[in-house]
């Protein structure tokens, strides 16, 4: 009788332990991995959308300012005129306010900051973008933006714990000078 009770207690203990281990594995390993995978996929979507917005905004700025008429080597791409035109199109294409603050329909979850727009001349050509593998044989631009992205899963909890309004994401892109320009 004593032996039977002992076996029964051990079995009961094993069941409880295995269920607890399963829950711990699920919560501590599977959940974060799945969440990270989904967030990474979502960031890729935002990145691709931002890349499209940046490319057509840059092309629009070059067209709107008739830069192809002047020598691109002589033009100052850091001038207020160029930056404001680029900002105008970027705000339209990322669905932001004109001052690049976010709206309810914007692609990102916070304000966008233009860190750098750098025109690279014909030096170092051909150049291969190390991230995308794209090869540039014409003059191109380095563009760097600062985006704010919030997590989509457990958003409130993660932001409350982190004590921030969103996470900063530095966006880099290289855009080739179009042939017309």
């Amino acid at each position, binding site marked *: 009788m004593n032996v039977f009770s002992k076996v*029964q207690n051990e*079995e*009961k203990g094993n*069941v*409880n332990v295995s*269920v607890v281990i*399963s*829950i711990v594995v*699920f919560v501590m390993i599977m*959940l974060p991995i*799945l969440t990270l995978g*989904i967030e990474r*996929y*979502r960031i890729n*979507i935002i990145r*691709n*959308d931002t890349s*499209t*917005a940046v490319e*057509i*905004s840059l*092309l*629009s*700025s070059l*067209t*709107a300012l*008739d830069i192809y008429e002047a020598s691109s080597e002589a033009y100052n791409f850091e001038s207020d005129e160029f930056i404001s035109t680029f900002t105008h*199109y970027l705000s*339209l*294409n990322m*669905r932001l306010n004109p001052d690049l603050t976010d709206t309810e*329909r914007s692609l990102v979850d916070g304000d966008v900051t233009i860190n750098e727009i750098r025109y690279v001349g014909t030096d170092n050509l051909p150049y291969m973008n190390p991230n995308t593998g794209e090869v540039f044989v014409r003059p191109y631009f380095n563009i760097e933006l600062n985006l704010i992205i919030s997590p*989509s*899963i457990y958003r409130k909890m993660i932001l409350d714990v982190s004590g921030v309004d969103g996470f900063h994401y530095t966006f880099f892109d290289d855009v080739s000078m*179009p042939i*017309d320009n």
Partner: protein
Amino acid sequence: MSNMMSTILYTVYIIIFLAFVVSIIEFTVPIIVKADFDRECDYYLDKSVDAGGLTVSETMQLVAKIEAMSPNINIVSYDITRSGSVAYKDDVHFVINATYSLSTITSTFTRSNKNYPLYYEKQFANRRIIN
């Protein structure tokens, strides 16, 4: 008693696990549909940038392709500038507004349709000179 206890515990665990898997799928599907929608629109946006807009048949092709992606997609409106209709440097619009409806679990035994917005809006200066 022990077997019964373990059965109950595992049943509860499996129910929680399945509920989580279903909610993850319901959360992920609209994100994947949005990515496919963007990819299709990007392809036609490139055409639009080159030609200063899309022809009527290209616009219809795009609409048909989006609708063919899923029977749950409903195109609410679209505004795509027709190629050759705007002057050089004027703005070309490329806007598609659609919804994707998905039946999601709202409580233990009820489901309801939820509409997810699929919105694509781009605007750019026309680079094409029409003679």
